[in-house]
């Protein structure tokens, strides 16, 4: 090979000695090296990394579409549907099918068509981009005409589609608001938790009531459709289909007509009072089944799913009576005299007093420290035994048996034992009803007071606890549950709101049988003494609850007038909540109940007539006459 640099290609005979051979070979070598590099790269792509790309190709062509199950329904005891899934049009986006350069016009078009705000749409889009293969909802409850227009203009709106979904429509949302609750978008802080349960961020979930407590059961599980799609997002055919697991239906223990009537009875009585607010719980003593649960003022479940006007929503939120809260289970109140049965049974069981032992009541007990504790009756009840003390609601008697009396050397039950009895009656902890937001209440002890108020426990605290004042806090449901237990012979039942769950074919998927929470630590003999006291409270002339007397059955129960700190009235008295709790019939009771009228004044005037009307209604099935039309009607202005 000659040197490349020497020019040799001369004319004529020098013909064959042309230059550039070495350099041409060099170029050939470079070309071979280049192609060898390509071959190496092909080996890498097609052999070494092939599995990765195969996966990506499969991922490319397969589009997964979740099939959302229909949300389960809710029925009342008589299988009357309380909620329906109404069809509604929503707008969805397959993020991978919307090229970024077409986002702008597509979102602007959608904003006009759906009435959504452009920045909201953009936010949802940016959220959806995080999971490009998961369709996301851009707008819900779009009018039918808009839905049709969007369908027609699909060419301008790549990746956008209209789906028919559902919205909850509550048949008796106005009377069942606190029980059924409502559904709505997931609160931002809970999105992550729900995502782990397989719930998408833009799905409606139960936010209150049964809708919330049974969310997982009502929702069911997503099905999945895998589609083969081409590069333009057109579905070609189905690769696989897993049907959704339809949500279960719930059958409640309440009957909508009874709930409606009892709510109406409470509403009528409250209507007479300016700041009418109150709660009623009625349950079956034997099973704990909730018959009715009302907390007024309440709300209509439908305003949340239909989209409440901001005005009505603002009213709900700003109302000082807090209508969005179910006060029957979440409201905490001092129970007043309805609580006295606990101290009574404790004193009997502990042998502090004999049933027939009489304690003198002269209207006031002054401790050596100088503190005075009054009875509600200034002149006193005289000598009272246990039954009379309950019937006439004598405070002095219960001060004596709970905190003791330094003058008579009577050893009271004491704070520790009293608190034990309170707990065994179901206080200080949640009853376990199938509703969210239940409060546990407070059973005060010296430890609690030390820790939370940094104050020592004094005898007066025990006195107050015995009569349901001071630090004690309970929910109306707890009170109803206690009276049901006294009525049924001593079993504290777990309140039952959901009787059973049905599968999509209507077969029972799960039953929730009645459950005993605890047995009252009270002997049958002593329980009968309590029951007799409660009977006499309603049915004897000196009793505090004659206005609870029913003409259709025998009622046993107890009034309560629970003072709470607030502005005193003209005579220097604290404002008070009015209670009446009991059961009916007195023998083998069918109903246990608690009635609370917030800021209602005297329990015997404000709450007892409500209990009577409810019992009358439950016994006859007829609505009782309006309170004003009753012969024993007492104007709400009346104060004793």
């Amino acid at each position: 090979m000659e040197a490349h640099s020497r020019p040799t290609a001369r004319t004529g005979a020098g013909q064959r000695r042309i230059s550039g051979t070495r350099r041409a070979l060099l170029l050939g070598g470079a070309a071979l090296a280049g192609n060898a590099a390509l071959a190496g790269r092909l080996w890498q792509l097609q052999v070494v990394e092939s599995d990765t790309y195969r996966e990506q190709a499969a991922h490319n062509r397969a589009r997964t579409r979740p099939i959302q199950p229909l949300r389960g329904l809710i029925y009342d005891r008589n299988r009357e549907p309380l909620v329906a899934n109404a069809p509604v049009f929503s707008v969805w986006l397959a993020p991978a099918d919307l090229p970024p350069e077409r986002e702008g016009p597509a979102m602007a078009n959608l904003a006009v068509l759906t009435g959504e705000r452009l920045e909201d749409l953009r936010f949802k889009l940016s959220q959806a981009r995080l999971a490009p293969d998961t369709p996301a909802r851009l707008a819900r409850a779009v009018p039918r005409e808009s839905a049709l227009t969007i369908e027609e203009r699909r060419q301008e709106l790549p990746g956008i589609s209209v789906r028919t979904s559902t919205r909850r429509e509550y048949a008796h949302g106005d009377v069942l608001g606190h029980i059924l609750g409502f559904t709505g978008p997931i609160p931002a802080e809970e999105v992550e938790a729900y995502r782990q349960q397989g719930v998408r961020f833009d799905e409606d979930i139960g936010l209150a009531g049964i809708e919330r407590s049974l969310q997982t059961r009502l929702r069911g599980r997503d099905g999945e459709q895998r589609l083969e799609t081409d590069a333009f997002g057109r579905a070609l055919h189905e690769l696989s289909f897993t049907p959704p697991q339809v949500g279960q239906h719930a059958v409640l223990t309440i009957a909508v007509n009874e709930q409606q009537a009892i709510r109406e009875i409470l509403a009528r009585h409250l209507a007479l009072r300016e700041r009418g607010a109150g709660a009623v719980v009625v349950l079956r003593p034997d099973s704990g089944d909730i018959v009715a649960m009302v907390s007024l003022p309440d709300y209509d479940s439908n305003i949340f799913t239909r989209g409440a006007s901001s005005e009505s929503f603002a009213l709900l939120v700003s109302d000082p009576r807090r209508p969005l809260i179910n006060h029957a289970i979440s409201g905490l109140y001092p129970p007043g005299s309805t609580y006295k049965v606990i101290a009574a049974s404790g004193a009997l069981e502990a042998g502090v007093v004999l049933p027939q032992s009489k304690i003198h009541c002269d209207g006031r007990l002054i401790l050596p420290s100088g503190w005075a504790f009054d009875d509600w009756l200034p002149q006193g009840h005289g000598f009272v035994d246990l039954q009379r003390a309950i019937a006439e609601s004598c405070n002095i008697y219960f001060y004596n048996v709970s905190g003791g009396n330094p003058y008579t050397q009577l050893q009271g039950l004491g704070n520790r034992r009293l608190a034990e009895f309170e707990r065994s009656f179901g206080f200080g902890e949640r009853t376990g009803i199938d509703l969210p937001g239940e409060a546990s209440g407070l059973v005060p002890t010296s430890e609690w007071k030390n820790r939370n108020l940094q104050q020592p426990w004094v005898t007066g605290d025990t006195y107050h606890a015995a009569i349901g004042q001071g630090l004690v806090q309970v929910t109306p449901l707890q009170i109803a549950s206690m009276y049901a237990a006294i009525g049924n012979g001593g079993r504290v039942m777990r309140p039952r709101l959901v009787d059973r769950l049905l599968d999509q074919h209507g077969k029972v998927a799960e039953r929730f049988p009645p459950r005993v929470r605890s047995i009252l630590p009270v002997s049958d003999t002593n329980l009968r003494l309590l029951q007799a006291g409660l009977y006499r409270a309603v049915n004897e002339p000196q009793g505090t609850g004659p206005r609870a007397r029913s003409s259709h059955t025998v009622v046993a129960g107890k009034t309560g007038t629970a003072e709470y700190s607030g502005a005193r009235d003209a005579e220097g008295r604290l404002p008070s909540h009015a209670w009446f709790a009991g059961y009916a019939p007195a023998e083998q009771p069918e109903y246990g109940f608690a009635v609370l009228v917030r800021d209602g004044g005297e329990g015997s005037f404000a709450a007892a007539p409500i209990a009577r009307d409810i019992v009358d209604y439950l016994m006859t099935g007829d609505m009782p006459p309006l309170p004003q039309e009753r012969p024993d009607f007492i104007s709400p202005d009346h104060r004793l």
Partner: protein
Amino acid sequence: MLVRLARIEWATIISTIALVAFGVLMLSTTAEPDSTGLENQAVQKAVLGAVGLAFAFAMAQVDYRVLHGLAGPVFLLGVLALILVLLVGDFDLGARRWFELGPIVIQPSEFMKLAAIVAFAKYLSDRSDSTRLLRTVMVGLGLMLIPASLVFLQPDLGTALIFSAIWMAMVFVAGARWWHLLTPIVIALAAFPFAWFFAQDYMRQRFVTFLDPGSDPLGAGYNVLQARISIGSGGWFGHGLGQGSQSQLEFLRVRDTDFIFAMLGEQLGLAGTMGLLAFFTLLIVQALVIGLRARDMFGRLLAIGIAAMLFSQSFVNIGMNVGLMPVTGITLPLVSLGKNSLLVTLLSVGILLSIHSHRGAAPFRQQSMHVVRGSLPAAGSRGGLGR
């Protein structure tokens, strides 16, 4: 005549036919299902390939040295066509690259590649004793920059770069000094930041995408990523002809032209891609061997130019398919759809065959270059290249 046939380079012919066949095969899997006869692009390509190949055979009989005399006029004609296409060409996909004359589309830059090879070969072989002079290299550079810059203005950066690759290879073999060649490369590298500053957005975008196709999977990086997925998912033997979700469901775009190699990779796997690469390598090696055996410098440089054209285009195209090169819109010679490119490549193969068949004891053997030059007017009247 028989003697000439015997001298035909069969390896060249076979690899050419094989590459065209690969193209026909691939196009047949993407053709509209209801297109029949000549409407079918695979059939069109097969027919055109056959005609072109027959033409190449015919060219083998003609002494390539007729081109020496045609070089100047053909080069001028090509430059005129490039100017014309800039002025009145059809504006399509943001560029002016071709004329549409009824059903026929003419893309001057394709023909210009061959015209430039012929012109460079003539220029460099005529000055084979002065290629070491900077002046010769610089004038040659100017000669190359005329068509290259016209093509660049279309804009078609890829093809412009092909011109410079061809030129570099030819000047290198012609015997230019190393530093004469290295200096422009160094200058080009040094100028890169400035070029970046003045470059059009699509060029920058392509460069960025080349470096990181995942940066914008739905936008600029889409094709690169999809091509890589297509090829990779092919595995050893591919999904089979007409199979493969990437190309059949059109995740792979421009699958008939720029990314036909990716489609091949998906359908025929490593076996197919290696086969294709082997035939390209064979063809390029043959072109080089023909160049080495050529009877004169003109023939050698012609063959080197054609080899450089085939290699640079196939390397850039396959490199872009596998993600080793940026996207430049260079098609795969002989394989891609594109009749101009097919025709020009087959013409080039015809020239190779002619160089080969006239390498040795041919009738012209005793003739000197002067004689050849003198005979050119007559030769020109013989050739079929004027078409």
